[in-house]
């Protein structure tokens, strides 16, 4: 039977390497991908994973089981580290001006087909060019399929904010891809 995150955390706190490895393998991929999508930089994503799990090691972990899943807590910590990195190393390609774009009302289906092509460089670039607040909600909810409640906890905002940001993020992404001549609607 798979040990719960809380049990593993307690074991990690008492120095169990086995528990730490289990916990790390269970969550590092999601943290890494989130950080990579946010930063567009593999080294930065690796740094974020390292910092997140060092936080777990150093403890005591301020994770409260009553306030959401451990994964959401980890993503929240990851997000804080990503924001620090983005502040430290601003990239000209990030957060490009989006005001001039004609934003279509992209349905979830359209976005789904666009994101299914996430492997393409154009989509990745478009995601990276979204403003941070939209990029993080898109990375969590659409790309990592984190549920809205956990995303709200990870990002420290309300469920309504998550929904509205996600809607706006999808529209912005669709506009960017259309502008770039990459029409995902043809799928």
């Amino acid at each position, binding site marked *: 039977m798979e040990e719960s995150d809380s049990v593993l955390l307690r074991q990690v706190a008492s120095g169990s390497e086995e528990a730490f490895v289990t916990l790390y*393998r269970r969550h590092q991929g999601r943290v890494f991908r989130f950080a990579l999508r946010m930063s567009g930089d593999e080294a930065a994503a*690796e740094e974020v994973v390292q910092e997140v799990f060092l936080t777990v090691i150093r403890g005591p972990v301020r994770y409260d089981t009553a306030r959401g899943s451990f994964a959401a807590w980890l993503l929240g910590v990851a997000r804080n580290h990503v924001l620090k990195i983005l502040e430290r190393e601003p990239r000209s390609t990030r957060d490009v001006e989006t005001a001039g774009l004609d934003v279509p009302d992209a349905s979830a289906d359209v976005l789904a087909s666009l994101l299914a092509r996430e492997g393409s460089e154009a989509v990745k670039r478009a995601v990276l060019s979204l403003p941070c607040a939209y990029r993080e909600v898109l990375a969590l909810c659409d790309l990592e399929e984190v549920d809205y409640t956990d995303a709200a906890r990870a990002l420290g905002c309300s469920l309504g904010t998550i929904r509205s940001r996600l809607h706006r993020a999808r529209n912005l992404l669709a506009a960017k891809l259309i502008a770039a001549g990459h029409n995902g609607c043809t799928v």
Partner: protein
Amino acid sequence: MTDKQEAPASLEQKLVGALRDHHALRRACRRRRQQGVIAALAMAALFAAASFVRLRPKDLVRPAIPATAVVAQVDAPRTVVASPSVAAIHKRRHHTAPVPARLTTGARQEEVTTDFLPLDPAGSVPTSGEVVRVQMPRAALTLFGLPFNERRASVPVQADVLLGEDGMAHAVRFVTTTSYETPTGR
């Protein structure tokens, strides 16, 4: 941007190493903290003992105990009846100074002591050292299995603490004063 989905495997090893170091450091800190606590407890015990016996400088008596003096019989029953040799030594050292003649009432006082009772029941009483006269709460008598008069609980009891050459208190004997009438000198 690459298609990498996971952090490199080397990071896992690095973090496991960090966990190991962190807990080694914590164990070391805990050990140091325990040693600190033990030292603090020892100091607290020392202060508590000092305040318990309420050292009185004027009562300090620091003659070395003669090698021949039998200061305690560890196996001897704890009794308020003094061993004659100890009582004799004690009388020589603490004989009450005669009261000036004009104030005499004809009463003289004499000290009677118990044997030296070891503070550590498993320990022995050193044959040499220093004796320090102190006052203790009367309730301390019960710690040594001696009878304790509750009506006199507020009256402290005198005791001699035997300090070994290591400076530690090893034994204690209780002192009581008896009065007897003597004819006045004039």
